[in-house]
């Protein structure tokens, strides 16, 4: 598979983590989840790197078949562009992130959304790593999701500043420094593309990070940032990233 994270960027990421003093924090954050009895398992960077290094170059045509055969399309839309406010769009997503997420589920690391995550946990346990790579290649070959119709452009403008500049005083770095200038991709396998994402799903994900109930962010980075965001800021960011989606009819 296409290895988008190379050694230099991986090292850069570690440097960023060290700057924020986040190494070794993950266990403490997970412990905040009072509802889960057993602590959630989490990735170590080296572990994740090894797991992704094993993944093959995906075949997008096989991925397209699997998208229907494994009923992914039932929730994520005919082509991966989600028709539902509850579930994410997958088109244009970075292959590493898709494979990583499927591995998260397969290893029962995702217990966010309460028991709703079980759907993905059970399905991913039916997939082998080649099939995961095929699905990832299929989603990656497509343009980013189109701008969701419910996107609020006024809110999007409010979100733009925070996304592009962060808030130094509160220790929030610019979202774009990891997720890309236009939300197109991230520099490490655990930073997804966000452009065109369903805003309601974006909000759910951030609330899960904020509450410490989602621990799929290696090193607890998103939990750290989300903790300091207000509900209003999360909404604004959701609509900002939604607004960066593809424009239907335009050649992307």
């Amino acid at each position, binding site marked *: 598979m296409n290895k988008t994270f190379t050694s230099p960027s991986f090292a850069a990421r570690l440097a960023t983590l060290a700057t924020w003093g986040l190494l070794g924090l993950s266990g403490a954050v997970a412990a905040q989840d009072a509802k889960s009895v057993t602590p959630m398992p989490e990735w170590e960077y080296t572990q994740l790197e090894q797991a992704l290094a094993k993944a093959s170059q995906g075949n997008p045509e096989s991925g397209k078949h699997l998208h229907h055969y494994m009923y992914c399309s039932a929730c994520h839309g005919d082509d991966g562009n989600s028709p539902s406010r509850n579930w994410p769009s997958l088109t244009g997503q970075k292959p590493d992130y898709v494979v990583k997420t499927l591995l998260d589920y397969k290893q029962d690391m995702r217990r966010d959304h309460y028991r709703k995550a*079980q*759907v993905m946990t*059970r399905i991913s346990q039916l997939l082998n790593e080649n099939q995961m790579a095929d699905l990832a290649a299929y989603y990656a070959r497509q343009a980013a999701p189109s701008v969701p119709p419910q996107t609020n452009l006024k809110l999007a403008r409010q979100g733009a500043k925070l996304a592009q500049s962060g808030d130094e005083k509160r220790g929030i770095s610019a979202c774009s420094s990891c997720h890309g200038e236009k939300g197109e991709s991230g520099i490490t396998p655990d930073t997804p593309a966000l452009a065109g994402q369903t805003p309601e799903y974006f909000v759910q994900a951030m609330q899960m990070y904020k509450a410490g109930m989602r621990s799929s962010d290696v090193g607890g980075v998103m939990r750290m940032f989300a903790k300091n965001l207000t509900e209003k800021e999360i909404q604004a960011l959701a609509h900002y990233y939604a607004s960066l989606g593809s424009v239907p009819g335009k050649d992307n």
Partner: protein
Amino acid sequence: MNRRELLKALGASALLLPASALAKTHNKTAHVVIVGGGIGGATAAKYLRLAAPHVQITLVEPVKRFITCLRSTDVIVGHMSLDDITFTYDALRAKYRVNVIHDRVVGLNPDKKTVQLLNGKPLTYDRLVVSPGVDFIQGDVEGYNREVSETVMPHGWKAGPQTLLLKKQLEAMPQGGTYVMVAPPLPYRCPPGPYERASLVAEWFQKHNPKAKVVILDPKDSFTKDVPFKKAWERLYGFNTANSMIEWIPAAQGGKMLRVDAASKTLVAEAGSFKADAVNYIPPQRAGTLAFRMGLTNREGWCPVDRRTFESSIIKDVHVIGDAAIADTMPKSGYSANSQAKVAVQAIADLLAGKTPGEPAMINVCYSLAGQDYGVSIADIFKVVDNRIVKLPASGVSPITDSPAQPLLEAVYQRNWHRTFANDCFA
């Protein structure tokens, strides 16, 4: 006690009512009394509050903790406990301002519009909702009676002690034994229920009693979702092979029961004699006894209603919902009861406000498990045409596919559905 005697008894006690209870109600807050706190009654209480914020709502239900039939087969095979399917009325009281009275209704006076309680004072209603569920008919099978059902041949068709009795008998079976299920004739509560139970018992055998088998004696030749169920049985339990763990004997092959001998656990059907180690005898059914005592039933033992409002065709201002109501193509399921409750209380809210009730659309979805990781489902949408409930074309049953994801997803959906559905009724 027959209806006339009941009404007479009620007439006498009505004289003792305080004057306030007999005052005309049209210039006061309307009072809706709901009798029966199962799926239908609990949903009615909650949704009436949402439809009519100012109405006074009283729910009468004898038990304080209600055990749903939904998922009770999971209790029999040890995947859930009775606590997991037990619900209280706390949320109806606290969140929806429902006055929940734990008492038994012993009489109805439709002229004075009162219901009489065993222990409490009579209740005067503007509209009455009755959700009485089902009771059993002993039928003409020699040797089968109530005592047999409470000891040797449990039905397990009302959750609680019956569920645990059946669980105990399943666990006590000798290795390689035979579990005989007697399926009921239509109409009955939860049409796919017997076949789900047969499936989950076979799955339990795979783990705990691998040479045992399930025999279903059925007075019918087909059943709901039989195509996906039989495919699941082929895939999971060797159905249609010499080593099948499930044997289904339909009416055409002699599935109809003739007699039982409780002492030797022997069942004689048209097909012959079956010696069982555990018997799950699910008898024929009719509307709950309360509906009979209230005079709400027809000759067939079910409650005729106006399909748009679920108001009884026999007694004015009384609505009957759930398993006991005649709802044509709608199956007798918890989902149907929930859907009918919403339609009935919206109609009541409209009628109390002097409006004409609208045309309802109703839904039924049944998820069953053919194994813990194998779900089959049916979904239907209904509307009323010429006072008959008919299915719309936008209906469907689980397809047969070769995708491993399809039955697995249905099983996951089933569990999520159960959790949210129970909340919709009780929380």
